[in-house]
């Protein structure tokens, strides 16, 4: 068990190393002048050259990647070029390990940027996952036990319609009607729990969370419905009925236990993906999370931030995979001992 977990962690780390290297290569493969973007529109040739040196863009890709890895391991000083640091010691920023880099555009370390954005994405992901799980599983079970009826078709059909609309449409629709026209909710704006309390935090997350949850709702309804129907057709369900158990108990204790297990995998991976940022939802609601940071840094060709966000999002997925696999061993006795 522990050997297995250790092996998975090592493979995960190798994967993240590869991921960061590929991102470096792709970044410099683009046919643009990266330093010019980083410097800004009004820069002249000299300023661009200085920026290039400060960011280390003048060095070969593998060397830059080595610097990045070194930063994670032991920390780093910025600007990257030692001559520039010697020339102007007062602008040197030290970034302690694990250092993900320094964003020239934001004049902040990537660690600071990510630390500021991550709680927003996490809050959003948490609220959304609770919403789509509660809704998806409940509606899925309801559809399964009323299979073939109008209710079943209604649930499956309506969630499919919600799924068919793009997120930016639904988000803007909610903003226009629920917030502006009907004034049911205040305009959502991210607040932290420390600043405004749990209620305000939650109320502000309702709309973005729901918008995000709608994307996943349809597939969770359909999966739950299919898994419950499959499980309820198994022989052990007949055994449970033949024991004299009430229909409710047969469904909830025997049927759902097997039916909901595959959902653990799906939920873990979907949740991990969202932790890395919900790009469209965050953009629509102007929520300063990792998704928005991803969009902004990509538009600005801000390599250090891009790398940081990519590696972090990749890390979430890797960790979720390991957690899900280990969780499975606790859920299914056949995995544990088999």
């Amino acid at each position, binding site marked *: 068990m522990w050997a297995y977990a250790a092996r998975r962690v090592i493979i995960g780390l190798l994967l993240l190393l590869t991921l960061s290297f590929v991102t470096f290569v792709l970044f410099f493969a683009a046919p643009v002048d990266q330093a010019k973007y980083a410097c800004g529109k009004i820069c002249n040739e000299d300023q661009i050259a200085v920026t290039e040196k400060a960011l280390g863009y003048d060095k070969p890709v593998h060397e830059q990647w080595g610097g990045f890895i070194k930063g994670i391991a032991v920390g780093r000083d910025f600007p990257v070029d030692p001559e520039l640091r010697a020339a102007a010691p007062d602008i040197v920023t030290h970034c302690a390990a694990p250092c993900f880099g320094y964003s020239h555009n934001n004049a902040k370390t990537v660690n600071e940027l990510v630390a500021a954005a991550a709680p927003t994405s996490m809050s959003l992901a948490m609220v959304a996952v609770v919403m789509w799980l509660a809704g998806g599983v409940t509606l899925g079970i309801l559809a399964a036990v009323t299979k073939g009826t109008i209710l079943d078709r209604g649930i499956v059909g309506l969630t499919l319609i919600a799924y068919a609309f793009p997120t930016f449409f639904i988000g803007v629709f909610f903003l226009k009607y629920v917030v502006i026209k009907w004034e049911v909710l205040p305009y959502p704006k991210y607040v932290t729990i420390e600043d405004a309390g749990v209620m305000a935090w939650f109320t502000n997350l309702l709309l973005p969370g729901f918008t995000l949850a709608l994307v996943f709702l349809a597939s969770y309804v359909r999966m739950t419905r299919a898994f419950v129907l499959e499980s309820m057709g*198994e*022989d*052990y369900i*007949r*055994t*449970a*009925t*033949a*024991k*004299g*158990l*009430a*229909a409710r108990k047969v469904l909830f204790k*025997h049927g759902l*236990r*097997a039916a909901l*297990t595959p959902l653990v995998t799906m939920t873990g991976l979907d949740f991990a993906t969202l932790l890395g940022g919900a790009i469209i939802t965050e953009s629509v609601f102007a929520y300063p999370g990792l998704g928005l940071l991803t969009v902004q840094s990509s538009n600005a060709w801000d390599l250090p931030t891009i790398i940081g966000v990519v590696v972090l999002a990749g890390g979430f997925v890797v960790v979720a995979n390991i957690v899900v696999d280990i969780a499975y061993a606790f*859920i*299914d*006795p*056949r995995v544990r*001992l*088999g």
Partner: protein
Amino acid sequence: MEKFLTVDDLKVHFPTPDGVVKATDGLSFGLDRGKTLGIVGESGSGKSVSSSAILGLHRGTSARVSGSIRLDGTDLLAISNQEMRRLRGKDVAMIFQDPLSALHPYYSVGNQIAEAYRVHHAVSRKEARTRVVDMLARVGIPQPDRRYDAYPHQFSGGMRQRAMIAMSLINDPSLIIADEPTTALDVTVQAQILDLLQDLQNEFNTAVIIITHDLGVVAEMADDVLVMYAGRAVEYGPVTEVLTHPEMPYTWGLLSSVPDVTADTSKRMVPIPGNPPSLLNPPPGCPFNPRCVHRHKVPGDLCRTELPALIPGNRGEDHLKRCHLSNPEMIYETEVVPQFDPALAEER
């Protein structure tokens, strides 16, 4: 006097878009406590469907069940769902064919048996555990206290079936329905399981219905045997009688399909030609007529026009047969190897 279990004119029909599937069509039998009835037939002859009806497992589905099933005087088709639920597992218990799929993979074996006990008895977890461990020991599971916490996949096939038997006996039922209890097991294990079932039956004076397509099992276990074909009983009587002097060509065919190790090896086994009929659109007359090699011995076209009644044959009142042949000797006299006539198949 009425028997302990009396099934009378039981019909289980399934409406489908293509028509009504008559899985069981007018089945009657009786069974006393301590006795065993073997129900024999090919796949799809309605054996399992009929026995599921006793436990009301068709309730809440589209199946239409009619007739009467009386257990100790109570009509099981008339009682409420609630009453049926209280009876399941307590008065009537079931043993299923494949114990691996019939046990829930996520719960320990002991837990699942204890659940069956606690549904019907208000006892603590601990008391239930004691009772289950006793029962596991009774069915011959070694180290029952340790095996209680094991999961089904950690049991061997035979041990799983023992556990299923323990589950079925946990509430001292008066009737056990064993649906092909040994089909999924090794031959050596089969004999052990059957012995166990028989011992426990004698001990608890339980009535047992054993559903099988294995005539060997019937010969060893049953007091009475009921041969089913296309949802109907075609022969019914004491097991020694029916298996030694079958009066219906189908039963004869089943017996001829059993390999006999003592027989001369040059003698060929005689399979029954053709396939069981569709229950959606059964052939007119005797349902077995398209496969029957003795059809021509019946005068006229009786086999194809008229369903024979289930009536006493020539060997006594308790041996019933459903056949137009007036004299069963007509089956035995022919040494024909049945030749399947393709023309017969096309008629269907």
